[in-house]
């Protein structure tokens, strides 16, 4: 929604959630690298 960015939202839960999604995605990709390397 253009221009509708609300103020700094310090709900750490959502921050942790998105960081977890990121780390989990890359962990799975790294796992794939390991599987393909065998």
């Amino acid at each position, binding site marked *: 929604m253009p221009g509708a*960015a609300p103020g700094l939202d310090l709900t750490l839960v959502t921050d942790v959630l998105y960081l977890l999604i990121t780390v989990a995605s890359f962990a799975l990709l790294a796992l794939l690298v390991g599987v393909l390397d065998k």
Partner: protein
Amino acid sequence: MSELLPALGQILLLVLLLVAAVPPLGRHLAHTYSSPAHWRVERGTYRVLRLDPDADQTWRVYALSVLGFSLVGIVALYALGRLQELLPLSLGRAGLPADGAWNTAVSFVTNTNWQWYSGEVALGHLMQMSGLTVQNFVSAATGMAVAAALARGLARSRAEGRVGNFFVDLVRGVVRVLLPIAAVSAVLMALAGVVQNFLAPVAMRTLDGGTQMLTGGPVASQEAIKQLGTNGGGFFNVNSAHPFENPTPLTNLLAIFLLLLIPFAMAWAFGHLVGDRRQGAAVLAVMAVLLLVGVGLLTWAEMAGPGTAPQLAGGALEGKETRFGTAGSALFAAATTGTSTGAVNAMHDSLTAPGGGVAMLLMQLGEIAPGGVGSGLYGMLVLAVVTVFLCGLMVGRTPEYLGKKIGQREIVLVAGYVLATPLVLLTGVAVAVTAPAGLAGLQETGPHGLSEIVYAVTSASNNNGSAFGGLTTGTPFWNTLLGLCMLLGRFLPIVLVLALAGRFATQQPAPPGAGTLPTHRPLFVVLLAGVALVLVGLTYVPVLTLGPIVESLA
């Protein structure tokens, strides 16, 4: 049809510019990725980062380096977006919401540059320059590095899976290729009228006595790398349709030239890297043919396509800037969707139904015509392997590409690559059309509504980044769904391509025999283009039928 001659003249001029620029840049790219000598500034960078530039990495280490570097980029960009209001040069802009900051971070690190926000309203100069523009450079260099690694894998003999050094490729791509061309291009852009300043928004009085806020900023410098790196993220919400970002037909042509330059030059460089320039020319020819067909179909659709308005007005002018005209908009639309750039100079939601369908298909081909910087080349090379494999099956011989045998392991990796993006894309569409949150932001219903959803997910999954429009995506649902599509659509294929590069690098090339399929002749060009259209294009026929094709027939 009064626009036909200028349209053809514009395409001819573009072709001439590319013919003049691609071979020398291709040679420079090949030298960049094969020279053993390091520049002084590069050595300094390696010292600061405590890297050994002469250490050759196995494909596994190379892939983990790509993933690690990108992970750090996402986390850093996320923090920059979330904390924007606490940082200098923010122009008083608020921090981005969590879902928006994540989407933006993933978007720019994956070279997608999908934008759910209005740049001129939501972002300050620090985020634009230190966040987005930096990622414009390094995400592009990452794609080029992966393509160089695959070319090395094909060129090397018994190298134990070693495909180069990611950080050396990354630094060289930025220092030797992207920075110099982007710097010159930024100056040209500024001279041609693109805005470049550090001013805060200026209040102007309009002719009818009202007040309008005009936002400036370092636009030309971002515009240059935005096109050159096939990034596409606009400084302004309306991207290259904005008169500060793309003011004249000259800047429009320059932008199209820049976004096509490196993808074609990478194909030329490939020929040099594998020691047979004809191989690069064949790959380049397939890219060019597919793009020219796309340009022709899209231009026809917009200038003489179905519908009363295009027939009477001599073109579908809705959603287009009059300073570019129908032909200038159609050429830009084909070039931006064929290259994974994602910049737009017209409203793609207003393209005619067949025109919108062509734009979607160009992305769905896997961004190979000519594709993103680096990603276009490695996508096309994967399809070349498929072509060789299919031809090998027909004549009953072991298929090989450039002397490297295509065995079971290789074909599993190639099949994974070919299936990965459609899997991400079609799953994303399925989730969006079945979830109430996915349908909530739709402007249209029926076939056009489906096209709006399919275009958005296609754009994200293929790391294009252009928006059809007509769909409100700045919501937690869409930001998360499209973020996942961008992330998986970028890194799943990269991991598979690097694994393939490693497999090739372990082999000793076999000399060509009587049963070897020549991969530099026109026959192979036709076969490769056919495989791209049949194998990849047919995957999307059902969903295209329900969207733009049904709309065309309505």
